[in-house]
């Protein structure tokens, strides 16, 4: 392992923070979903880095689980996006207040 595990962790933290930034600053629902993907990807990177550092493949197994969850989440989320857009003609998250959130 030429590059230490802490490099991967810092990269993972940077990617996660950029994802958080996208979630709290963007108004478009699709961009928010993409930022969520970015955060999941950062968590996966941390999983695999720890898996390598410990010599234990459990981290990789759970990364496969995370990918499965991400795929399901994207499918449901984009179905919601299409449904909301055909109904409300907008994807601005400040306009969408059906749930009174």
């Amino acid at each position, binding site marked *: 392992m030429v590059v230490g595990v802490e490099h991967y962790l810092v990269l993972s933290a940077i990617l996660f923070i*950029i*994802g958080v930034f996208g979630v709290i*600053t963007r108004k478009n629902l699709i961009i928010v979903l993409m930022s969520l993907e970015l955060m999941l990807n950062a968590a*996966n990177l941390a999983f695999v880095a720890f898996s390598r550092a410990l010599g234990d493949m459990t981290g990789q197994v759970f990364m496969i689980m995370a990918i499965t969850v991400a795929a*399901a989440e994207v499918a449901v989320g984009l179905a919601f996006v299409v449904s909301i857009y055909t109904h409300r003609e907008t994807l601005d998250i400040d306009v969408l207040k059906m749930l009174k959130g």
Partner: protein
Amino acid sequence: MEDILFYIFAAASVAGALLVVTHNNPVVSVLSLVLTLFSTAVLFVFLLADFIAAIQILVYAGAIMVLFIFTVMYLNLRKEALAFDSKSVPIKFGILFVILIVVAYLSSLGFKRGLQITGEGTSTSTNFGTVEGVGEVLFTKYILPFELTSVLIVVAIIGVVAIAKRRFN
């Protein structure tokens, strides 16, 4: 050699991530996300996770991103929906950034000290990260979570069909 490549692909993934959250055109955002996921797949190869890297490219950069780009093209978004939000956000962002960098650094320090991991990493078996190795762990020790993901997929499929069919008003 490997550290130079690490920094190149780490920089590529961060640049792609920044483009995702800052660019106004959603198609550019999707393609930058593909760049980020691809660079992360290369980093997985450095971490001896070959199978995971292949899965990342096939499922994430392939299937999920095709779904995203299909939706973006299908909806034909207008300009005003793509703007940024409020003004106090950079302060929150700065605080979050500092906290997470510190947490990552401290956790890596504690990790190194607690488990006595040198720069070499622990010794790994020959099938570490290959299809055989991951499959062996996945189908013996973690067979129950693996089976439960199939339930999750079924729920997602039924949910997607139910949401997409319904015309609510």
